[in-house]
């Protein structure tokens, strides 16, 4: 009877835990949401294992990942100028206070914001929304970082050398598909063990590890879609040069 009680109790705890995790993780919490205090930026792209899709999505959601208001504002930390024809924006809108992202990542590409301010309407200081041409979606995977956020900031571009400097488990950045990811908070959570992130992976391009053509810590395997999804949630910005 004692064993039966133990089994009952274990089953109840197990079922409660699993239901709670599933409910909170899949229903309550939007994809890509991280717990505050873990220093993670980036937007999750659930089940997006295709780097090109990931890149497009990231570009489209770039305005969001920086912790800025809705994409319509076209503002990322005050670094991107108003886009012609984007609506009734005023300069004041471009310096609006960033708010926490409320929009989950999306696979639908949105127009790439122009890196350089382009006043429309005869060079006046105030943009004229009515005469502005509609911007075309630009599929360029790597936006020009200047003038934009600097390396390490959301959507800020880094060189491979800059990423390589972050080669410790306590400060671990990795490169995949032309983007860099700050995975320090994930180092100890990797299902393959805590030693997967080491001097061979931190600060380096991990493409070959992700697709299973190289091994780390004695292990090589092709990662699942959810693994790519997890990686995407740590995306910060593009790698240049």
């Amino acid at each position, binding site marked *: 009877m004692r064993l039966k009680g133990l089994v009952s109790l274990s089953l109840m705890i197990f079922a409660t835990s699993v239901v709670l*995790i599933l409910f909170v993780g899949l229903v309550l919490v939007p994809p890509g949401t991280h717990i505050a205090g873990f220093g993670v930026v980036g937007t999750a792209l659930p089940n997006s294992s295709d780097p090109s899709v990931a890149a497009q999505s990231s570009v489209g959601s770039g305005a969001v990942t920086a912790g800025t208001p809705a994409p319509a504002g076209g503002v990322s930390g005050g670094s991107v100028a108003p886009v012609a024809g984007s609506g009734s924006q005023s300069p004041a809108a471009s310096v609006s206070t960033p708010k926490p992202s409320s929009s989950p990542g999306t696979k639908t590409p949105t127009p790439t914001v122009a890196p350089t301010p382009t006043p429309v309407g005869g060079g006046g200081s105030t943009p004229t929304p009515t005469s502005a041409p509609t911007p075309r979606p630009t599929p360029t995977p790597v936006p020009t970082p200047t003038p934009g956020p600097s390396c390490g900031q959301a959507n800020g571009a880094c060189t491979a050398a800059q990423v390589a400097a972050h080669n410790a488990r306590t400060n671990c950045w990795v490169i995949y598909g032309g983007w860099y990811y700050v995975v320090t908070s994930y180092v100890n959570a990797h299902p393959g063990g805590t030693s997967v992130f080491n001097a061979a992976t931190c600060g380096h391009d991990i493409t070959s590890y992700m697709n299973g053509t190289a091994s780390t810590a004695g292990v090589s395997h092709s990662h699942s879609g959810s*693994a790519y999804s997890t990686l995407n949630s740590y995306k910060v910005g593009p790698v240049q040069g």
Partner: protein
Amino acid sequence: MRFYRFTHYLGWPLLLTLCFLPALRWAMMQPMATRFDGPVTTMLSIGQLAGIIGLTLFAFNLLLTTRIKFFEDLFGGLNRVFIAHHLIGTIAFVALLAHPVFLALRLVPSSMRDAALLLVPDLGNLPVLFGILSLLGLIMLMYVTFFMTLHYRTWILVHKFLGAVFFLAGLHVLLTPNDLSRDHILQTYLLGLVGLGLVSYCYRTLLPGIFVKRYDYVVQLAKRLNDSTMEVDLMPVKKGIRFEAGQFVFVSFRAEGLSPEWHPFTISSSPSDQGLAITVKSLGAYTEMLSRFLPIMNGVFVKVEGAYGRFEFRDVGGPNQIWIAGGIGITPFLSLARSLAASEVTYHVDLYYAVKTESELLDMDLLQQAVVGLADKSFRVIPFVSTKQGQLTAKYVGDMSGGFTNKEILVCGPPPMMAALKKQFATLGVSKGQIHTEEFRMS
């Protein structure tokens, strides 16, 4: 106490050591400080340890089901092996339940969604999928075992799926890239255990007809002892089994209209007898049916497996003994009493035979026959009818037998009765080493 009884206490320490070894190896793979230096690593470590220990216990549990006699020596009889089997199976189950929960919890700080997705079957992640399917199968089997009343045959059929569950668990271990796959010693140990578990499963559950040695017998005489009990005398077709007094066998009757399922029955004959006698009490659907087959039982073909059990008066030490039988628990004592006469040592035995009503008492002449040749003073049978005298107590036994000093106490009966008596003996200052029990629960 004979030396070889010492081995009866080795089972648990040996088992715990073998389970501790992979955990120790895991602990040596990297500094412990890094294993538990924060909530994430702590949850990861607990999840990994739970998986290692759960799988190890699961494998050993399959090994224990083989009924190999070596394990009887280690645990002190097959009944104790089965008790260990139940306990180990439960601990393994709890550990295996904890394994995915802690691995998912460790992802919560980084991504709640990833934590949830880890628990969702994903065809794109086969190693985890195998683990999830294995655990779901195990949960169903444990639920059926503990919370459903199944027919014995259905129960046996359901348990045949245990091998599939274990096989999936093995695939999960083999294919999941983790700490184990980076340590060849640990990986080899665990995969070796998985192989051992699968071999055990094939030996006992999948193909017992090929691997397990069984003996052919024929029913020579089936006779009723009282309203609910009958004795069946079996004669070997060729070679018979070798057994000690107090042991039991698994028997399958092969009569038309009777299920050939295997059931344990205690041997009530003496090892010096030519054949084999078992005592059957109507306690369930199968034994009820056997009772109805009594008139046509003679000449029925029977398969016998065994003998099992380590309930022997010669193993327990001194010649002054108290035997306590509850209900059908009298059967091993019948065999023990019959072999007393052949013993070179003179034993002084008081046999307390407790039943609910007088009608349950086996023919007392039978008991006297069992001890023909013994001097009256060396063997006393003390019947005890609980509806008239109340519950049999340790105090009553002590008063009747003149205390417990230098006496060995052998008890066989319903588990609640044995548990109550053991507690009372302890209260009266009887050491655990003096008490020897034969639990009846075998399933």
